[in-house]
């Protein structure tokens, strides 16, 4: 992985430390306050020009992580530094600057397009809000962006409903690029799209990344998509970042039993291939009442006594490969072989 090692020498563009987000909810019958523990002590970094993939099942906290970093919701604890600035203490002017540098692409492009406004206006809107350029300059920039994502000038006069889902996602991308951001948080950008359109969008994202030196935080549940686009991947389960590794390393040597389980659940892409399935029983426990100790212990086939009581800490097994699991507590090298044997 030469590209990754060369970028890791730099300071990270975004560094997230011990991010925690609880939501207060009313419990049904009593007045007792309860909390959904959506994100719990998540730490990771994104370097310039790289794509960090965040994977996990629904309810694992991956979208909440993205939204909290964007300051769309306030964290309960933890820190995030963007270019060495403390994201969570930014106020007014600085926050506006931050929002210029960090943009977001959503699963449903309609959520960022006003149905009553023409596309040309929607794409120009971020520049208007941030007071960038004259009207003529903005128009020129919109034309440039729209042609970059594959539209001709006459499309600018149209309304969102005149476009297909894939086209609207491309418009959403053009809009996100309007302010020349450094980091784009992509929250499930292709999961609502058909296969043939999905590949168009993935190709576009890869091209734009090298053209504009963009960094992506790519949140998705489809592992083959994340494998394709991400340089490094973090696996989330019930609010915890249970494993983190460079992409090829993660797919070659998944360490956490949950990661192994997740990878084994991907359907084999050819009828002649049969994947060895790890069968796990049950669903993800409720984040209202996460299990004590290791959050995965209720479903883990390798569960030990210690897992039920003690929360595992992050342990670096090889360069850039960390895991939160008691199986790797003692000597790293010895346990690696255990896990490979168990994983196979």
């Amino acid at each position, binding site marked *: 992985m030469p590209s990754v090692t060369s970028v890791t020498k730099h300071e990270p563009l975004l560094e997230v430390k011990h991010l925690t987000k609880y939501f207060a909810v009313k419990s049904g019958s009593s007045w007792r306050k309860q909390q959904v523990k959506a994100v719990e002590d998540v730490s990771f970094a994104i370097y310039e020009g790289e794509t960090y993939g965040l994977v996990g099942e629904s309810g694992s906290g991956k979208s909440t992580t993205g939204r909290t970093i964007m300051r769309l919701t306030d964290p309960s604890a933890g820190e995030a530094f963007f270019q060495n600035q403390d994201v969570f203490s930014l106020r007014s002017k600085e926050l506006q600057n931050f929002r210029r540098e960090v943009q977001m692409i959503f699963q449903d492009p309609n959520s960022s397009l006003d149905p009553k406004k023409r596309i040309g206006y929607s794409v120009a809107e971020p520049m208007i809000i941030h007071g960038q350029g004259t009207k003529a300059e903005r128009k020129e920039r919109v034309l440039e962006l729209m042609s970059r994502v594959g539209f001709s000038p006459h499309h600018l006069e149209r309304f969102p409903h005149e476009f*297909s889902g894939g086209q609207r996602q491309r418009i959403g991308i053009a809009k996100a690029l309007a302010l020349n951001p450094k980091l784009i948080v992509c929250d499930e950008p292709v999961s609502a799209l058909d296969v043939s359109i999905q590949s168009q969008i993935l190709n576009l994202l890869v091209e734009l990344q090298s053209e504009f030196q963009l960094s992506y935080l790519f949140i998705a549940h*489809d592992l083959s998509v994340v494998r394709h686009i991400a340089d490094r991947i973090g696996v989330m389960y019930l609010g915890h970042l249970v494993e983190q590794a460079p992409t090829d390393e993660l*797919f070659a040597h998944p360490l956490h039993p949950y990661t192994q389980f*997740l990878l084994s659940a991907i*359907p*084999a892409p050819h009828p002649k291939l049969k994947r060895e399935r790890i069968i796990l029983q049950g669903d993800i426990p409720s984040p209202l009442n996460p299990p004590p100790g290791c959050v995965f212990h209720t479903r883990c086939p390798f569960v030990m006594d210690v897992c039920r009581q003690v929360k595992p800490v992050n342990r670096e097994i090889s360069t850039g490969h960390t895991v939160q699991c008691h199986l790797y507590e003692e000597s790293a090298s010895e346990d690696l072989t255990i896990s490979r044997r168990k994983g196979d």
Partner: protein
Amino acid sequence: MSQTPLLEVKNLITTFATDDGTVNAVDGVSFQVYPEETVGIVGESGCGKSVTAESILRLFDETTTRYDGEIRFAGQDLLQLSEEKMRNVRGNDISIIFQDPMSSLNPVYTIGDQIIEAITLHQKVSSGQARDRAVELLRLTGISDPETRLRAYPHELSGGMRQRVMIALALSCEPRLLIADEPTTALDVTIQAQILELMNGLKDRLRMGIMLITHDLSVVAQMCSRVIVMYLGEVIEETDVVTLFDHPLHPYTMGLLQSVPNMEGQRKEKLYEIKGSVPAMQDVAHCCRFAPRCPFATDVCRSEPPVLEEAANGHRVRCWHFKEIAESRGEGDAFSYIGYEA
């Protein structure tokens, strides 16, 4: 599979009346499903795969929908049945499960009420017997502690559990054909694996046929023995599952197979793109419907519609140029495969 087909759809045309005139959402579709077989129907949004499924059960409002062709099930043409007799077929002989189980479950009744209702509606059993049967069905679909779960409301269950309840409901009258319309699309990959495994097991146990509608080719690879690929209301290719993956003949099928990121492929490498997007049904010209997006399209494609022809035994394809395309792809055995002399 030498028996007679369980379901035989012949030249089905489903026409909707819309404000902008009539639309043939399904346009001349034919296929068979045999007992104990899973047939996959694949295609992207708007290709008519769900309309085909719902036409088989005649679920559309028949004041604005017209069906033509034949749907033969157990020796009778479903399109000729009275509404009353059709009601007997639905749920009893043919069941359907949808992508979103919440839309088919009633939020104000417990899971148990709904399963017991389905059983007593179609079968002459006492409520006690129906209750026992409901417990047994929930256990069959892998729900733990079924006696307690009977008293649960749909919102108290997770997405995967709800889909299991839907399957239990669909199986309550031991149908001979199960139509599953994107049954795992809304589910996480780990839950998807459980549900697919469950469907496979139940198919063998109950000896039913499954018609699986999906856009996900890896689900097809894992579940189906035969596959029908649809595009804009037409069948464009039909073959057994291994042939579909090894020797696809239609450019659209090839495109679909190639545009999925491959787990073994080079990361960030440019993925194959099918250019453009699926046009609206109303805009379809009288020609090959894939021609505007096809890299191999010629004048004949843009002026005349190709027919679905038999390229090899059991392999049908709707393309003017499938022989040349197979040759140009440099597949050494392509010609021997489709049975033509080079």
